[in-house]
Structures are given as structure tokens and as C-alpha cells.
């Protein structure tokens, strides 16, 4: 492991939470990818906002209550590195586009909150305007105020943002991607300074454009330029919009070009598709990225058991040492009903504990609240 990666790994595992706790000072730290279950009632309120039936202030209060509950769920499930569940976001793209100066969105109302806007870039973006921040730091601060655990903060990557914009400003579409990257770099620096334990760039659309990996990696490197402190992660999956894949294939397309990425961790989807792609980590050993191992299928409402999770982690341990593994769902849990999302995270933590105890001889994570299954908890057939 290089010094950089070692340092990053130690950062993840020893990063104190807001109140000084070191909740992740164990091997095989568990985390979420980002989003957490969006209950139907919250969808209704969000849609009401985008149809101007309730005010932004009203919606913000609702979001804050929901985020506190999401944090509590993650803590109760025993997740070591938590997030705000991205519950403020309408979707993975518009939350950013609507804040980026120079992106024009003619119609701000939506039929359904999760729909994408029609967005345009008609003139080159003001990439050097240091005063134009996106306001994401406020989101991070709020989250840190309500949890002792290290916080992951995810940003949708410049390549994916560019795919949802009608570009009328740049002759070369790559220039738009890099403009987004420079704007996001400013924000990433601010998030690092505000105490994000993990920064993660999500590239949900990249799997559909395997020929564009070089461009996407260059842009990711620009976003992370000069960032010190947080673990720098990148998440690539096969899509999770409406809980559906947008592409089928394997992670071959990422390699070897992803080896040029100046990141510490790759957070990847495995549980739904199987673990064949672990072979890539055997084949490409340098740089020694950490692997965020997907052990929970977020496109299925079937509950994983702790034993299944443990088996998946053990399989990865045949390829990578425990120092290079963290454990997470395949992707965000936003489309999974609340009670199933919680149960899936519980299974993830319990399965990971099992490996710590049985394989590594470590005690279970003591920061975890005991979780008992009640009769009302889902069995996986709830949907």
C-alpha cells in the first residue's frame, strides 16, 4: 500500500466524529453509499414543493427531521460512516445543476420531484468565481451536528452532470465536463475543510459510456485536486435510477484507465451481479485502492442475511487484505422502503461483525446498538 493510500485508510478508520468519537476504529468499516430510503410521504411533500403547494422553508423543516431520523437509523443499524441520506436532494443531478451558476433551467416546477429538469449551458460556466459556492457545506454541517460518527458526503461527478445538460456553449463536450470539475473542486475543498470524513464522487452514468472513462477520470482528478484530509472515493455502479440498471456488463471497462485516478477508494456494485469482478483487484494491484465492497443488493427488496453478507466479505478477503476493504450496499438505498432499508443495513453490520469476530479475531463493533428483530420487522417478502 502506498503512503497515500495507507494514510487515507487510516484516516477513514480513525477519523473522529464531531464529538471526538472514533466510531470506525475497526477493520472492515461499514458505510452507506449515500442515499437513504425516501418514504412515500416524503416524496409527496417533495412533489408538493415542486408544484408550489408548500414553501421551501416548510420543505426544509421536513428534510431536517427526516435527516435526523435517517442518521438515527444508520447508527442503530451499526453503520460506522454515515451520511445525511441525501434526503434534501430531488435527484442525483438536479440538486447540483440548480446550484451551479451559469446552468439555465427554464422551468423549475416538476410533475414529480424525482424527474430531471431540462437544463442548458448556453455560455461558458464562470469557473473562477470563488464567491459562487453551491451551499453543500451547510448540508454537511447540519449532518455533523446530529451525529458523533464520521460523515460521508457524496457529490455527483462532472461527467454524469454533463450528460444531463444540453450543451450550447462548448464546442468540445469535454470542456463542459472539465468546467464542472473545476467548480466542484472548489466545493470539495470547502467540504474537506468542514470536516467530511469521506468525500465520494458518484458517476452513475459512466457505465453507459465506457469509451469516456479517460475523460471521467481526468475530471475526477480535477475535483480532488489539492484535497487533503478526507478519504477520497469514487463510486461507479450500473445505475440505480428508479432502482433499475441503465447498463449491463462488468467493470472491465474501468480498468486499467481507473488506475490513473487520484483517489483512495473505489466503491463498487457487486451484490446484484456477483463477485467475478474481484479478479480485477487481483490483476491490478497497484495502486492499492481501498475497495468499498457492495454486499447489499439495493435493487431487490429481498433481505440479505448476516450470513450472506459475511460470506461476501470473506470472498473479498480472499483477494484483498482487510486493511483495504470497507463494506457498503451496492448503491444508495433511496428506492428501498424504510423498514427494509434499515433491515438491510442491520444485516450488513451484523454480517461484517461476524467476519471481524470469526476471521479476524476482533470483537464486534462496540459502538453498535443491539438490534433485535421484532415480529413486525420485514422478512423480505414485504413488497
Amino acid at each position, binding site marked *: 500500500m502506498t503512503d497515500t493510500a495507507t494514510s487515507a485508510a487510516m484516516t477513514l478508520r480513525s477519523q473522529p466524529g464531531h464529538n471526538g468519537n472514533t466510531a470506525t476504529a475497526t477493520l472492515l468499516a461499514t458505510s452507506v453509499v449515500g442515499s437513504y430510503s425516501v418514504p*412515500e410521504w416524503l416524496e409527496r411533500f417533495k412533489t408538493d414543493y415542486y408544484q408550489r403547494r408548500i414553501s421551501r422553508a416548510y420543505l426544509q423543516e421536513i428534510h431536517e427531521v427526516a435527516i435526523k431520523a435517517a442518521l438515527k437509523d444508520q447508527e442503530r443499524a451499526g453503520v460506522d460512516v454515515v451520511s445525511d441520506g441525501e434526503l434534501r436532494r430531488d435527484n442525483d443531478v438536479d440538486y447540483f445543476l440548480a446550484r451551479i451558476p451559469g446552468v439555465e433551467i427554464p422551468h423549475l416546477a416538476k410533475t414529480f420531484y*424525482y424527474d430531471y429538469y431540462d437544463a442548458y449551458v448556453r455560455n461558458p460556466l464562470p469557473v473562477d468565481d470563488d464567491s459562487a459556492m453551491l451551499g453543500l457545506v451547510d448540508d454537511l454541517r447540519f449532518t455533523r451536528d446530529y451525529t458523533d460518527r464520521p460523515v460521508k458526503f457524496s457529490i455527483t461527478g462532472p461527467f454524469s452532470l454533463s450528460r444531463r445538460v444540453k450543451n450550447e456553449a462548448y464546442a468540445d463536450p469535454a470542456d463542459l465536463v472539465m468546467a464542472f470539475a473545476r467548480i466542484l473542486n472548489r466545493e470539495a475543498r470547502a467540504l474537506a475543510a468542514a470536516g467530511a470524513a469521506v468525500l465520494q464522487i458518484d458517476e452513475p452514468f459512466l457505465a453507459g459510456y*465506457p469509451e469516456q472513462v479517460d475523460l471521467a477520470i481526468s475530471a475526477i482528478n480535477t475535483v480532488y485536486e489539492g484535497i487533503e484530509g478526507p478519504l477520497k472515493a469514487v463510486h461507479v455502479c450500473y445505475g440505480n*435510477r*428508479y432502482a433499475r440498471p441503465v447498463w449491463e456488463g462488468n467493470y472491465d471497462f474501468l480498468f486499467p484507465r481507473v488506475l490513473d485516478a487520484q483517489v483512495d477508494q473505489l466503491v463498487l456494485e457487486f451484490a446484484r451481479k456477483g463477485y467475478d469482478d474481484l479478479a480485477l483487484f487481483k490483476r491490478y494491484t497497484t495502486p492499492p485502492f481501498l475497495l468499498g465492497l457492495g454486499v447489499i443488493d439495493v435493487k431487490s427488496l429481498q433481505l440479505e442475511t448476516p450470513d450472506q453478507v459475511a460470506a461476501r466479505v470473506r470472498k473479498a478477503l480472499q483477494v484483498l487484505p482487510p486493511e483495504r476493504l470497507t463494506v457498503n450496499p451496492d448503491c444508495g438505498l433511496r428506492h428501498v422502503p424504510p423498514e427494509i432499508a434499515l433491515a438491510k443495513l442491520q444485516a450488513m453490520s451484523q454480517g461484517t461483525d461476524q467476519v471481524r469476530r470469526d476471521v479476524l479475531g476482533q470483537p464486534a463493533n462496540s459502538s453498535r446498538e443491539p438490534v433485535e428483530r421484532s415480529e413486525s420487522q420485514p422478512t423480505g417478502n414485504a413488497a
Partner: protein
Amino acid sequence: MYIELRTPDERMRGPKAVDAAPVLTEVLRAARDGSVDLSRLRVVCDWIQYRQNFRDPIGLRLVEPWPLEAVRASRNGDGELAARSAWEIAIDLRRATDGSLDELLHTLLRGETDTIARVPLEPWVPGSRSIIWGFNALYWKALSLWEQATGRGYEQALPGGKSDSRNVAAAQELIQQLFDVWDRLAARRALPDELHVLELGVGNGNQARVWLDEFQRMDQESGREYYRRLHYLMGDYSPHVLELARANVTSAHGDRVSSLVLDALRPTETLGFLRYKAFLVYISNVYDNLPTDEIARIGGHLYQVQVRAVLPLAVASEIAARLGVGAGDLPDLVSRLLRLGPALLAEVSPDRFPTVADAVVFWRSLWEGLRLDERYVPLEALDTYDVAPGVSGELLRPIALSSGDVRMHVSNGAAASFTDTLPLLHPLGILQCHDLIVTDIGQYATNFRGPGKYDGSVVNWVNGPLLAAIGSRRGFDVTFEAFAHRTGANVLTMSARARD
């Protein structure tokens, strides 16, 4: 008093117009002479295009009070809840000119509804749980017996006398779309080894035969070699129908075709292995034949339409007399018929049904006489009402509130089938459905959309905006267009493709 004419333009004016004036005159005269609170009376006139249906020319429906209304009534010292109920008189304009309307209206408006005698065959239930769907299921299970008795196949019994399943041009268009998608995937070396196509509801196999013949021909002409990678799956609820379809296609395409008995409401139970793999799911004339509830918005409140299958007393008495039983014995006999089917019923009750043909006569008589009583019950807390598994009633809110008062189908069966089929689609796959579809909620105000009776089965137009909303929430664009290859048809083409 509120009067609504839910009637197409061509029935209100022009050469096909029905003269509604005498009907309305009779309504007003009866209202004048009756004792019902006119502020709580609705009169709804439909022009029902199905000659066979579940209604009498005139019917009465109770509108139960919305809870808040009852509270207000109580606070105002009006403890008589029934007094706060409203009534709806339903008139079929097509049949209301036979002279009986005046007498019936007066009977209803005098509140003497008990004199209109019926024999209930079930308790009040939401439409999708009515025994009419048991009859519908029995029809497809015992189709050969019904066809034997009537002397004609089910396709001949359709309104146009044929389905669109043999349309070559439609098949060619769809196949070309698939070829284009596969060419693009092949260029990126992302084309799977097996190319799956699924047909739900195979009928007699004509659609599959035409489609596969054309596929093979076009593939040979283009030299793409897709045919040898094709896997065509035929799924149907009826083993008998499936066998007929298999016989139709296996001689020419046997090595490319598999058939599976499956429940159209839950295709993934059988086809889970196909998740994200189907490039085409083709569904024709299935959704309009699946169970459905109806909801109504009346005075701004949402109601569920509850139904109760009944036989008019005269019909029930006649059927019962033929069997040597009392009319009160019929509900039990109906239940046994639906549970056992005519063949077994004849076997276990030879005294009443000496032959299977006698049991089929009983079945057909019941079907002909069957009516549905209706009432409106407040639909509270939409999130507790399931449109289909995984589809909350909340999805109905924006649709039901998009216009004024409306009565519409929920198409629960179609919604369940559609919802459970979408996960089978490859990211570049397409679901194509030919059916009777309402594309705008406003259309419920101008035409009767079911239930109608076909020969042994039920037909209801499908709530297109609801399916579009379900698709949208799952990342699919759902579009509707006229069936391009036959003019004048009511059938529309619904397509669903992944978006974003």
C-alpha cells in the same frame, strides 16, 4: 339535483344521436312527484355501448356520507346518518326508452327500492374482488367447453370478430426496432448470447406465428443471424390456450420457442430468471380482461365503488326452477361452479347436472343474467389502498384530482401485471401492449368504459394515465398511439421504454 350525461358527442347529436329529452323529462317528473331530498340526488346517464353488460336500464346507488360530513351532521343535531346519504340514479340512455323508465323512476324516488327484487350472489366488495372475475377466470380455464356450447371460437366473439394478432405490418415494424437496438449493442460488443422476447397472453398463437415467420424472413434477408439467438417465450394463464398456441408455432419454430403457464398478474413469479433480459414484452388484449376496482370523485371527495353480483329475481327463479332448487340455493351452486368448473360440477352433482353440457347451460344462463349492484363508499387514507402490490393508492391522488368529479377504473390487474413485467425489461427493452385504453381522464366523462360482457368474459378499458404514472415512477416513458395498421379500431398501442 345534479344531472350528468356521460355520453359521446355522436350520441348527443348527428344521425346516431339518441333522444335524451324524454328520458330527462321523465326524470324531472319523477323527481317532482317523489319524496327523496333532491339536494342529495344525482342522476347519471351513460350510453352503454356493450349490448351485454352488468346493468339494468336504470339503477339506484347509495353514496355513503364522508366521515367529516357525518361529524358535521351530528354536531348540527342530525343524528340520522342515513338522512345524510346521497343517492345516484344510473340510467342507460341506450335502453331507457322502452317505456319502463317512468315506473321504475317513480319506484326509486318514492324510496320503494325493496320492490326491485334481486338475489345477491356475494356481499358488497370492491369491483376487483367480485365473483364476475371468477366467471372470467372460469371462461379461460374451460374455454373449450364454452366454445363447444356456443359453436364459435373466442376470437369470433370479439366485437370486431377478430383480433389484430395477424397483422404483418405491425410485426415487421416491431422487429425492425429490435434489429436496430441489437445492431447498436453488437457494435459495442454488448449483445447478449440469447435474445429474449416474451409474449404474455398468447391467444391461439397467431401473433407468435406471424411474428416468428416475419422475424425469420427478415433475419435471413439481412444476414444478421439473430434468429438462431432468439428465445421466444409464450406465457398464458390457460394451459389449453397455451397448448393451442404451441401447436401453431412449434412446427416451424419449435427450437426457438418455450411456453410457460403463468399468472398475468405476477409474471416474475415464473419469469424471475428473465429479469433485465427481455428485449421485447408483447401483450395484446390482456389488460382489459383483468380485475379492476372503480373509484369516483363526487363533490370533491373520493369514493370506492363497491359492487355486489346479483340475479334479477325473475331470472334467478327461472334458473332455480330448471334445477329443482329454490332461488336462495343459487349462491351456493354458483360458488361450486366457480370452484369446480362445469365438468367436475356435473360429476359431483349428477342429479342436477346429468351431463357436462347441462352444467355449461347453467353457467351460460348465470352469465347472461348476472348484474352488478353498486354503491359508493368513502375512500379514506389513500396510502392504505393498494392499487397493486408495491403501488400505493397515493399514486391515484394527482390523477383523480386532475379534473373535476370523475368516475374511473383503477385497472388493478393491469397495474399489477404492468408493474411486475417492467423489471423483466432489458435497459434497452420495450414493452408493447395493444388494448382498449383510456389515455386521458377526461375520456371517462364522455364514454362508458366498462364493465362490458363479452362471450363469457369481462372487458374494461384500461386506465392509461395510471399505467403511465406507474411507469414514470419506475423510470419508464409510457406513450399511447392509435394502432397504426388498422383504421377505425378502438385498440391503441401502449409502449414503455426506459428513460434517462
